[in-house]
C-alpha cells in the first residue's frame, strides 16, 4: 500500500475576515502552520487563497463589507482562479447569521478551481486543501509526438509487425506490443503516448478477448466521449467482437477482410481525423 506523503510545498494566502471570524482565522492559521503549509502575506505570490464566511456578508455588493480588504481580496482571488491557482471558501456553518442568502449566492457561483467547504473542523478542511493541492495528473513518460500509436497484443505479434513495417515508412508511427509476462505496467505509458498521437490504433487477430477489454479501458482512461484522440480498432472479422464497442463514441471499428489493406485503412482514418 502506497502512502501519499504530500511532498508538494505550496503557499497559501489567508484572506482578511469579518470581525466575527477573527478567532476562526487565528485557529486556521495555527492548523495550517502545523500542517507545514506556508502562509504568505501577498495574494499574488500564493498558490491558493482561503476566504472565511461568517455571520456578516462582506462579499456581495449589497453587503456592508463590500469595500473592506476581505471583500476586495475575495474578488481579486476570483479573477486569479485557474489550473495553477485555487480558491478555497470555508464556511464553518455554526457561525452563520440568521440570513445566509449571500452564502447560497456564493455556492451558486462556484466554478472550476473554486472549492467550497462547510466542514466544521479546521483540520478536516486543511486535509482537503492538502489533498487538492497535491493532486496531479499522470506524468507523461517516454512519449513523443507521432501520427499513429499502434497497439497490439504479443499474441498477434507477427502480423502486427508486418503492418507496422509497412506503416512506418509512410507515416510517423510508434508501436507497442502488450505482453502480459513482461512485468511492465503499460497503462501510464499508453495514456501518455496516446495523448501525443493523432490517432490510436488497436489491432488484433487472435487476441479478440484482450482487444475489447483493452479498448474499453483505454477509452475510459483517455476521456471517453470527451477524449481528444480517437481510437481506431481494426480486428479480424472472424472474431466478431467489435459490436461490443459500438456503445462507445469516439471509437471507429473496422473488420479486417484483406490483411494487406490494413495500412491503407489506417491511413484513410488518419486523413479523415486530421481533416476535421
Amino acid at each position, binding site marked *: *500500500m*502506497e502512502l501519499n506523503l504530500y511532498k508538494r510545498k505550496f503557499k497559501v494566502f489567508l484572506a482578511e475576515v469579518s470581525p466575527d471570524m477573527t478567532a476562526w482565522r487565528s485557529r486556521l492559521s495555527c492548523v495550517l502552520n502545523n500542517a507545514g503549509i506556508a502562509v504568505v502575506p501577498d495574494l499574488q505570490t500564493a498558490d491558493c487563497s482561503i476566504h472565511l464566511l461568517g455571520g456578516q456578508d462582506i462579499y456581495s455588493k449589497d453587503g456592508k463589507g463590500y469595500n473592506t480588504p476581505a471583500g476586495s481580496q475575495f474578488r481579486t482571488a476570483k479573477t486569479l482562479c485557474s489550473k495553477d491557482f485555487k480558491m478555497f471558501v470555508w464556511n464553518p456553518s455554526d457561525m452563520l447569521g440568521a440570513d445566509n*442568502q449571500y452564502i*447560497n449566492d456564493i*455556492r*451558486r*457561483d*462556484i*466554478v*472550476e478551481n*473554486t*472549492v*467550497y467547504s*462547510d*466542514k466544521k473542523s479546521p483540520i478536516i478542511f486543511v486535509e*482537503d486543501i492538502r*489533498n*487538492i493541492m497535491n*493532486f496531479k495528473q499522470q506524468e507523461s513518460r517516454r512519449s513523443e509526438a507521432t501520427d499513429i500509436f499502434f497497439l497490439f*497484443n*504479443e*499474441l498477434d505479434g507477427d502480423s502486427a509487425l508486418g503492418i507496422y*513495417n*509497412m506503416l512506418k*515508412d*509512410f507515416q510517423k508511427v510508434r508501436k507497442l506490443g*502488450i*505482453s*502480459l*509476462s*513482461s*512485468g511492465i*505496467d*503499460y*497503462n501510464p505509458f499508453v495514456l501518455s503516448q496516446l495523448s501525443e498521437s493523432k490517432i490510436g490504433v488497436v489491432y488484433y487477430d*487472435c*487476441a479478440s*478477448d*484482450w482487444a475489447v*477489454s*483493452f479498448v*474499453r*479501458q483505454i477509452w*475510459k*482512461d483517455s*476521456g*471517453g*466521449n*470527451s477524449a481528444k484522440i480517437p481510437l481506431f480498432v481494426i480486428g479480424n472479422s472472424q472474431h466478431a467482437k467489435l459490436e461490443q464497442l459500438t*456503445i*462507445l*463514441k469516439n471509437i471507429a471499428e473496422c473488420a479486417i477482410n484483406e490483411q*494487406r*489493406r490494413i*495500412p*491503407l485503412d489506417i*491511413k*484513410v482514418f488518419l*486523413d479523415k481525423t486530421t*481533416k476535421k
Partner: protein
Amino acid sequence: MKAGICPYPGLRPFTEEESIFFKGRDLHIRQIVKMLEQNKMAFITGASGDGKSSMVYAGVIPYIRAGFSTAEYNSWVFCDFKPQRNPLESLAKSVSQQLQVPYDQVIERISNGFSGLVDVYKMSGFYVSDGSPDAKNRGKNLLVVADQFEEVFTMNENFHNGLPSNDSYTSVNVLLETIRLSIVENLPVYVIFTMRSDYISQCTVFRDLPEFVAYSQFFVPQLKRTEILQVIEQPALLAGGSVSSRLSEVLINNLTSGFDYLPVLQHTLNLLWKMADNGSKPLDIIHLVKIAGLPKDILGNNEREEFNRWYQQLPEYQKKYYEHPDLDNVLNAHAGCLYESAFDYYMSHADWADKTITPEDAKLIIKTAFTSLTKIDDNRQVRNRCTLSEITGIISKPEITSATVCAVLNIFRDEDNTLLRPFSVKGDLKTQYLGGDTVLDITHEALIRNWKMLSEWNHEEYENLNVYNDYNTQVQRWVDSGRNPKFLLAPGNYAIFSKWYDKCRPNKYWILKHDNTQRPEKEKIRTAANRMVLCEEYLQRSNEAIIAAEKSHRRKVVATISALLVFIAGLLIFSNWAMIEKEKAEEQKEIAENQKAEAEYQKDIADSLLQDVNKAKNIAQEMSDSLQVVVKQTIEAKLESDRARRQAIVALDSAERSNRRAERNLHLAEERRKEADKERQNVIEQMKLTAKANSEAARLYYVALCNTLAMKAKNQYEDKSLNLRLAKTACEMNRKGSENNKNADLYEAMLFALEQNKMIRPFKLDGGMAKSISVASDGTISTFDENGYIKKYSVARDGNITATKQLSDFESKVQMDNAVFATSSLIVCSAKDRKSYLIDLNKNVRIELPVDNDYVIAACSSPNRKQCAVAYTYGEVIVMPADGSSTPVAVKNFGTMITDIHLNGNNTYVLTHDGRLLKWDTQAGEVKTLLSSGGQRAFCMTEIPDKKMLAVCFSDGKVQFVNLSDDSLAERITGGHSKLENAVYSSETGILALSSADKRISLFNTNDLNDKPLVIEEHSLGNQKVKSMAFDNEGRLFALTDDNHLRYWETDPDKYAAVISKMNLAPLSDTEWDLILGREFAQK
C-alpha cells in the same frame, strides 16, 4: 453511445460492462493488481458500501483483462462466486463452467480439500507446462474471486453457533491451499476475496485464514476529496454529459462520512442523471433539489420559480419527502415514493397478474417482503435472501399468490430503480415474471439503513421475534414436560401472548425464516409446521386450562404443599448418607499418603548407587583419552621424516634441470648473433626506401593539413569569417598536396563556411506544403503543393532563389496527399479522398485517373514522353498515354506495396516495399523478377541512362546497380548508412545523389564508384529530411525538405573553391594557427 445509458449504476455495484464509467479508484486498482502479482492473493476488506465488489468487477478484472498486469500466459480465465447458502457448491459451479470441466468431477475433487482446485485447473487444459514456445498463447491464467465472503459467516447454513459448516470449512481450505501451491510451484493462479471488515475477527474460526489475511490484506481506503470529485464528474464526462462545479461542491460537502456515503452518492447521481433528461442537460443543483436532496433556498429566483411549478404537480404523498431535504433523504424519498406508487404501477404494468387485491394488500406485500429480506444479525441489520414462495408463505393469504407478490414488488426491481434483485427489464416478460423458487435480495444494505420506513418495520419485526422467542420457550417447556398442564400459560402471560398472536399472525414460513439451525430445508419446514401446530395448540390449551383452573385452584394448592413435604423428607435422608460416606473416604486417603512416603525413601537409595557407577565410568574414559594422544604424536613424527626425504629428492632434480637449461641458452645466443647481422643489412636498405617515402609524406602532410583545416572549418566560431579563412587555407594546402578539390572533408568545410556566412541560404516556400519539385531544362524550378498550386522559381545572379510565377488552375478543395513530377511538365497527384489525377502543364489539362481508392506513390514518364506509368501504394500500376486520354494503356495489380516505378519502352520496372525489382512487359503482360527480396526493404530507384543501368536503393543504405540491357546485376555499393529515400541522377555531371533517412545526401561519381562520395550533411539540410530532389543542367542539386524549404548546392567542389579563393580574406595569424591547429603543425 447508446441513447439514455446512465453512467451511474445507483445502489447496485458496477458490472464489468460498466467498468468504463468506474472512476476514483485508479490508484487502488493498481495497488491491488501489484499485490496479486506479488502475493498471488488479495484479501480486500472494507466497510459496507465501500465499493469492494465494484473495485474488483469494474476495476481489477478489466484492468487485468486489458493486459496491464504481469502473468505467465497472455490471457485469463475468471472464476467468481458468492458463497451464498453453500460455498463449496457455488465455487464448484463457477469452476466447472469457466474451466469447462464436468461439475461432478470438480465437486468430487474439491470436496476433498487442499489441492482439489489446483488439480482441476491442471487437468482443464488451461495450464500448459510442456515448455513449448506457444505455451504463453495456449495457456490461461486463473483468477478466482470469492465475492461477499462474509456470507460464510452471515448464512446460517454456513455458520452456526460460532462454528463453520463442513462445506464452508472445506471451501476455505481449498482456496488457501490453492494460494499456497500457487506460491510454492509458481503457478499462474490468483485468488481475490472481498469481505466486510466487521467480520474480520470471525476469520479466526478457519485455521490459517488469519495468517493469509495478514499476508495480503487490502483495506479499502476512504476516498479523498479529489477522488470523490472524480466519482462525481468523470462518468458524466465519459458519457458525454457534464456536472456543474457547484453541484459537485454541494455533493461533496453534504456527504456524511462513514457508512454508506458511496452508495448514497451513487444512488443520488443515478437519480440526478435521470432528472437531467438522462444527461442531456448538465447536472446541476436544481436537479438535486428536485430529488429532495437539497433545500430550495439555494436556488436563484428563476430556478426557484421553475422548481415551484414542478413541485405543484407532484402527488401529495411525495410532497412530504421534501420537508427535510438532504442527501441522506434521497434514498428514503425514492423508496418511499415507490412504496406509495407500487399499487398503481402494479395495476398498469402486470397484465399477467391477478388484479383483485387492494392498495392495502399491496402495502402489506411490500412490508412483509422487505422485513423478510432483512434480519438482525448480532445487533446489525443485514440482508436475508428469501425465495418468492417463502415471502408468499409468510404473507399467508390464500388470495395472494407468488405471481401477485412478484408483480407488486416489480416496481422495486425495475431497471430504473434497482432496489431489489433480480432486476427486471422493460418489455422483457422473462425478467418481469419470476417463479416461486427465485431468490430475491436487497440490492444494498444501504437501503436498510436509509429507508426510514423499513427501519421501523424491522424494529417491529425484531420486537415480534423477541416475543415469539419467549412464547416458544414456554411451548417447549410444556412439550418437554409431556404436555403437562402445569406448563400451560398463566392468565397474565396468556393475555400478553394472545394479543401478540393476533397482531403478528405468525405462520410456519415466518417461523422458518427465523430458524437458524443447520439442517436440511425440508426438515426445517416440517419442524416449523409442527411448531406452528404446537403454538396454536398451546394457546388453545392454555385458554382451556385457565377456565378450568378457577374450579380446581384449592385442590391444587393442597397437592402442591404435600408434594413439597415429601421432597424435603427425602432431602434429609440423603444428607445423612452423604456424611457417612465422607468419613470413609478420609481414612482411605491417610493410608495412601503413608505408602507414598515409603516409596520416596526407596527411590533416594537407588539414586545414590547410580552416582557411584557414573564416577567409575568417567575415570576409565580419561585413561583411554591419554593413550590416544601418545599414538597420535608417534604418527605425526613419522610423517615429518617422510616429508623431509621427499624435499631432498626434489632439490636434486631441480639442480639437474638448471644445468641443462644453461647449455641450451648458450646455443641460442650463438644463433641470435647471426640473425642480428642480417637485420643490420636490412636496415641499410630500408633507409634508402625511407628517403623516397619522405617526399610522398610531404605531399600527404599537405593533404592531412588540408583535412585538419577542413575539420576545424566545420566548427562554430564567434567570428564567422574564421570559417571562411580556414576553408581558404585548406584549399591552398589541398592544392599543394592534391591535383583536384574533390576532397569530401574540404567540400563539407566549404559548405559549412559559406552557410555560416549566409552565402548559401535556404528559401522558405510560401503557402501550403510542397509535395514535390522538378527542374526544367531552362533552369526553372517548379513545386506542386498540397492545395494543388504549381509555383515556379529561379536562381538569380546573386545566387538567391526568387519566386517567379504561381498557377492556380489546378487548385484542389481536397488536400493533396502526394504528388510526383513524372517530367517537368507532367504531374501525377492524389488527394486525401484517394482520387488521383494526371496534370499536363503543356496542355493545361487535368485528367482524373481510373484508380480512386488508393494513394499515388510514384510516377515516371517514358524516355520518349509518350507514356506515363503511375504506381499506387497498395499494388496498382497503370500506364497512361500522354495524349490527354483517360484510358490506361495497361493496368496491373501487383498485390503488394509498391515504392517506386520506372518506365523504359514496353518495360515497366516496379520496385516493391519488400525489396523486389519486377520487370513488367506491358505488351506481353509478363512479369519477371530481376531482384529478389534480400530481407531489406527498398524505397527508390533511378536510371543512369548513359550507362544503361538502374540504381536500386535499399533500407540498409546499399545500392544495387542493374544492367537494363540484359537485366544482369552489376555492382553493389554502400550509398548511405541508413534507409535511402530519394535518388536522382545528373547526366551532365555523372553524379548520383542519394538522400537517406539520417538526413544526409551522398553524391557519387558514377564514373568511379569507388571514390569517397561527397556528403551534404544534416546541418546543410536544416536538420530536415529530403522530400524531393532534382538536378539542373549545370549540375546543381535542388532539394525540397520537410520544413517546406528549398535548398540547392553546387556538386562540383571546384566552384565553391573558386568562390572562396577569390575572397579577400586575411591569412591565419600565428596565434590563430597555434590555437586552432596546435604548435605541432606550426613547427612542421
